[in-house]
């Protein structure tokens, strides 16, 4: 089944060092491109597409007079333009710039035009990850694959995680689980900790806010708990006010996970708007324009339900 090889290449979005919320200890998180969901609150919109995609930071543009190289072919007609007036920096017509790739970004001398996503080999990724190995040893950390949906590149993820184990690095993944079971079955043997999302309980509401219903997601997680009893699973929910910040959702997730002893925790992540900038860089519309983060009171109230279910006091100690 596995096509994994040590020289496997994958489409990598970013490698982020010293992460403390992506699994145990201090970790290096590798973000892979491609996602099968469209969460309206997504903070990594640059990770969604299956291919490298055009991005633009107007603050780095030096303008038509000083440069203007992107205003001519190979850029498609009308894709880049300059408005009348004193500001001669380039703007992007994202509808006409669809499909622009390296041939378009390579002409930009300042890096204003660039691509989200690049091909990397397992060795290239792990050589960078290994630079932090001292921190992993001290903190019990390791490498975490995130995304996008890291399970949508199953061969690359498998090769990378297997090689990480070979190098003595602890492994974790972040997944939303909307993949064929075969992908999960291929990757999970090489994972120490599985951080998995329960975004919404109701399948219709799940489809409205996330783009697809959660029937297969729940089936995958249940099968994963049972197929890999020795793996550590941690359930997570991004708390979005007015969407899933209700006790009913928290209790339904607890009902789903608590029968499985290998699901050791359920964590809540308060919604934030840090990814919003990137929507502008990609020419995408951020649909939750007027949403605000949940209050600390809401988070405390919902976390108390989880603590009670896991037999912990509010301070997080076993009661």
């Amino acid at each position, binding site marked *: 089944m596995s096509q994994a090889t040590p020289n496997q290449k994958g489409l990598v979005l970013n490698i982020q060092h010293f992460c403390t919320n992506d699994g145990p200890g201090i970790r290096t998180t590798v973000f892979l491109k491609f996602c*099968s969901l469209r969460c309206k609150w997504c903070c990594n919109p640059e990770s969604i597409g299956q291919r490298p995609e055009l991005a633009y930071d107007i603050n780095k543009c030096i303008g038509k007079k000083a440069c203007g190289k992107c205003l001519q072919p190979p850029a498609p007609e009308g894709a880049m333009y300059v*408005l009348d007036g004193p500001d001669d920096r380039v703007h992007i*017509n994202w509808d006409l710039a669809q499909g622009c790739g390296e041939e378009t970004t390579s002409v930009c001398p300042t890096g204003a035009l660039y691509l989200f996503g690049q091909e990397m080999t397992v060795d290239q990724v792990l050589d960078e990850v290994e630079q932090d190995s001292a921190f992993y040893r001290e903190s019990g950390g390791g490498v975490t694959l995130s995304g996008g949906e890291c399970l949508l590149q199953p061969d690359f993820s498998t090769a990378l995680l297997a090689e990480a184990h070979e190098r003595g690095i602890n492994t974790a993944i972040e997944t939303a689980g909307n993949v064929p079971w075969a992908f999960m079955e291929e990757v999970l043997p090489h994972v120490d900790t599985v951080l998995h999302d329960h975004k919404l309980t109701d399948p219709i509401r799940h489809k409205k806010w996330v783009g697809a219903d959660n029937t297969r997601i729940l089936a995958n997680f249940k099968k994963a708990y049972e197929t890999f009893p020795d793996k550590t699973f941690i359930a997570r929910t991004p708390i979005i006010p007015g969407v899933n910040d209700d006790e009913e959702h928290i209790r339904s997730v607890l009902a789903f996970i608590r029968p499985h002893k290998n699901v050791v925790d359920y964590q809540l992540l308060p919604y934030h708007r*840090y990814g919003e900038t990137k929507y502008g860089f990609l020419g995408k519309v951020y649909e939750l324009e007027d949403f605000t983060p949940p209050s600390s009171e809401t988070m405390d109230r919902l976390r108390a339900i989880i603590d009670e279910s896991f037999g912990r006091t509010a301070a997080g100690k076993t009661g």
Partner: protein
Amino acid sequence: METSLHRIAINSGGGYVPGLNAVVAGAVLSASNLGLEVVGIYDGYDGLMTRENYPEGGLVRLSPNVIENLIGSDGSILGTAARTDPFRFRTINAENFVEEVDRSDELLEKIRAEKIDAVISVVGGSALTGMHALSVAFKLSRKGLRTVCVPKSVENDISVTALSFGYNSALSYTTETLARIRTAARDVHRIAVVEVLGHQAGWLALQSGMAVCADVVLIPEIPYDLREAAAKLREDEKAGRRPSLVVVAEGAIPKNDDASSADSSQNLQEHGLRKSLSPLSDPRFGEGARVIERSGLAAETVALKLQKLTDHETFPVVLGQLVRGGAPTAVDRQLGLGYGAAAVRALDSGQSGVMVAFQPPDLKFVPLAETINKVRTVPANSEFVQIARALGISLGD
């Protein structure tokens, strides 16, 4: 070779503006006189792309005796489509993956199957969704669709037309509301800072501000220094005029050397008001945290800074999208009817790939390629700007 014209479809891309039904009525009445049939497509192209979601089939036959009663009505008989795109149509594949696929060929085939010879699309303007609708029409035209576009904008920012329909209604409502706010603010001895639409073009802020003789008007085209605005408010007060109203377009930007905004970590000229003065514009809040786009920040930020500079109590008010609703004014009714009728005339005379444009005193037809990627902004030395200054309105410069 183009087929003869028998059946025309009409739809609306982008969001609602007052007068949409008037455009539809203008097209239907005009087509009827030429013996042509008109059908409406619901919600942009959704009525054709996802007919299964519409119990009545996604298309509606538009007859003159029905539509003429809707000329002055609120709402849109055809609906709108702010985010749908036949070139990136969101769907769920067999693997339950959400993906965006190009279904433009399928759309063109459906148009042919419905024996629709041409499409009139109401589109505009420069904001992301409006530009998007125009670009979609442009791309469909390049793929062979016989099409004429009608410009709509509550910001009047479409470059090729002197007046987009919807603008006059928004201007009237904004002016009326500003007058009420000013009275309320003056009554409690405070200064209202009112944010109005206008991300790149300041027409709405400038003309409504002029209409009520606001104390200060800040527009994207004229970078401001709030110290200048504050000085003007103090002068007015010394002269016995109680300051009460500041109008700020959502895209207004401060001057580079505006020390009143120097606590922002970003180069202010570079990022615009909403971006540079965002509460989270400090990089200490984390990578990617510096730009927070939400309506209301312009008013909120200017209100706080003016309060510091003037020691007058201020309060922010956001009109924003509220002014897009409502029924059309008389100007937008006749403009909408005229645009609809002219679009049919363009098609009947064999034109395609054009936008109807009001270039006084004429309605003209401009190639779509000349309409995209342009914004009609307020010239810094325009007559309107000079009149505003003559009225004693500070533009913050």
